[in-house]
């Protein structure tokens, strides 16, 4: 029998292949899918989060652990029933129109998934319609817009307007190198985070409120 604490340890260590192999084996052995998820994958991510908070872990450890957890979840997903996974919220993420800087937004996406959010990434160079449509389709709780360039960050305001006009329930948070709280207030965003780890905290806060 696969020891579920070994799955948990492999998530913490970011051993993607080991996690996939052990999850598969545990499923084949007939272990409870819900338990594999809770005691293996999710509890592993919980410890990673604690270690980060304490200052023992850094971003690369968070990102690779989240990747390992996602890989394990992918094995389990065909067998999961609705309600088995408690989602922290549904998020639509994208980079503002005219901007093709991908990386900051993608790191935020991985971190959010690691924290239990369901994330739909609409990619780069995304206009207001794309954000609104995808948020509708996914019944999103939260929309995240990223922009690196000063020329494209002003386009975030158009997305926020479109979201409000469409009457969506989704809250909007923004980020990017040139963005500050001052700018977020000016364009009417519900939230702002200066970096990926604090984006997770902000997302949790916005989804609850």
């Amino acid at each position, binding site marked *: 029998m696969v020891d579920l604490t070994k799955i948990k340890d492999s998530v913490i260590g970011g051993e993607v292949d080991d996690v996939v192999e052990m999850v598969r084996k545990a499923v084949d052995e007939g272990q409870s899918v819900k338990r594999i998820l809770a005691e293996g994958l999710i509890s592993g991510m919980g410890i990673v989060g604690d270690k980060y908070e304490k200052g023992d872990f850094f971003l690369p450890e968070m990102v690779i652990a989240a990747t390992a957890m996602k890989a394990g979840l992918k094995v389990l997903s065909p067998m999961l029933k609705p309600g088995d996974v408690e989602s922290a919220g549904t998020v639509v993420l994208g980079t503002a129109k005219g901007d093709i800087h991908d990386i900051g937004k993608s790191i935020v996406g991985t971190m959010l998934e690691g924290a239990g959010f369901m994330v739909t990434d609409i990619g780069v160079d995304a206009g207001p319609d794309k954000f609104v449509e995808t948020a509708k389709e996914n019944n999103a709780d939260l929309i995240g817009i990223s922009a690196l360039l000063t020329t494209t960050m002003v386009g975030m305001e158009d997305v926020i307007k479109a979201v409000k006009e469409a009457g969506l329930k989704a809250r909007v948070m923004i980020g990017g190198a*040139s963005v500050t709280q001052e700018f977020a207030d000016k364009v009417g965003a519900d939230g702002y985070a200066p970096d990926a780890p604090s984006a997770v905290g902000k997302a949790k806060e916005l989804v609850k409120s």
Partner: protein
Amino acid sequence: MSKPRISFLSQNEIEAIHNASLKVLERTGIKVMSEQALGLLKKAGAKVDYASNHVSIPGKLVEEALEMAPKTMKYCGRNPKYDFVLNKQETHFLATANPPLMIDGETGECRYSTAEDIVQCLVVADYLNHVDLVWPFGTDLNVPGPMLHIVDMYTALCNTEKHFEGDTVTAEEAQYQLEIAATIVGGREELKKRPIISTVICTISPLVFDKGMTEASIEYARAGVPVVIYPMPAAGQLSPATLAGTMVVNAVEFLGGLVIQELASSGAPVVWAPSCGTVNFKTGRRKWGPESSLMSLGLAQLARHYGLPTQRGGLGSSSKLLDAQAGYQKAVSLIPSLLLTPDIAGGIGMLGPGTCLETMVIDNEIIDYALRYVEGLEVNDDTLALDVIDNVGPGGHFLGEKHTLQHFREGWMPEITDMETFEIWEKKGSKSIAQVAKEKTKEILATHKVVPIPEDVQKEVSRIMKRAEAELL
């Protein structure tokens, strides 16, 4: 004259980085989002896949581009007294700032820049003796995106007679920028001879070239106006965590860009700005530290090996105040930078996440100090001064010697640095350097008048600006 210089990569190491870069360009390749650029690359023999924008560049194309690229070039100002040549002999200083935020050095207050801030920075830059060229100092968020970089350039050319190195993110912007600059210098041919502007093209690390910037750089190449290729990988995030691997990613992006420039127009002037960052792994944000300097200096050595001009940082600081940290970070990064004599060193006006007006005055002083240091010292009969030593003999002093009179003014003298006795400092108001700099800045703004663009030319340029607005907005 014996000048202190550094060079720490061996010839073998330089070649290893070069060869690794060629291998990546061919094996991994780069992604170029511009069909125009892909067309040039394909025609020259690179392996292009239009569907994925992927291109694999053979070493031969790189070697040819390195041959074609000019080894020296002119950077000019609206006033020819500010012209200079990038020829690896001396360093010219760039007021770079950090748009779009402005920082108050005394209080740490941080806010978005305004049109007024930008003009003030330009006036101070026009005044300061060590500023040779300027970047956009801020972003006026009231200017619509498609006009932003055209307005940046227009504002700069109106408010300083020095060279402007701007940003360009679309071919249309490039065309208007080039037209404005050509109108000021008296035509396209004249602009080629006396480029009063240049532009910075940032690659998107790792290994991606944006469509707009690439096509803008092609416009500049064809106009014969310098393009600065500015890759900004960050170790462990946008490139390998190891310093050498990050240097390779930087070199690959530079060489890829260089090939595009030289294919667009053989002999196109290109400058390499090998910026390499490290990462704050707690937040994922970029940070500058000793490793950034090491990587960038190593690549400056590689640029030297190619014989090409370089631009480096110089006076970076992540401090939010004009405090001890600002001072030591700026000084510690500037001096090694100057020991490799990059053609251009930047950072004047940078503080933490933004631009700080009064730090420009302090940066000017740090440069003055550092330049004296890298100037070195001379050893000859006159400077050994044996007769003077013999004349004074044991127990005397040298203040009254003619030799002293001849030489004492050669020593560095500060303009704003406090080197007084305690009593004099106290009598002058016990001021910190931040206060002194603020006062000096106010004085410059009150007294310095920038020579304007001649009225008839100004009218013509205004017409171009109106045409740009009508077309682009």
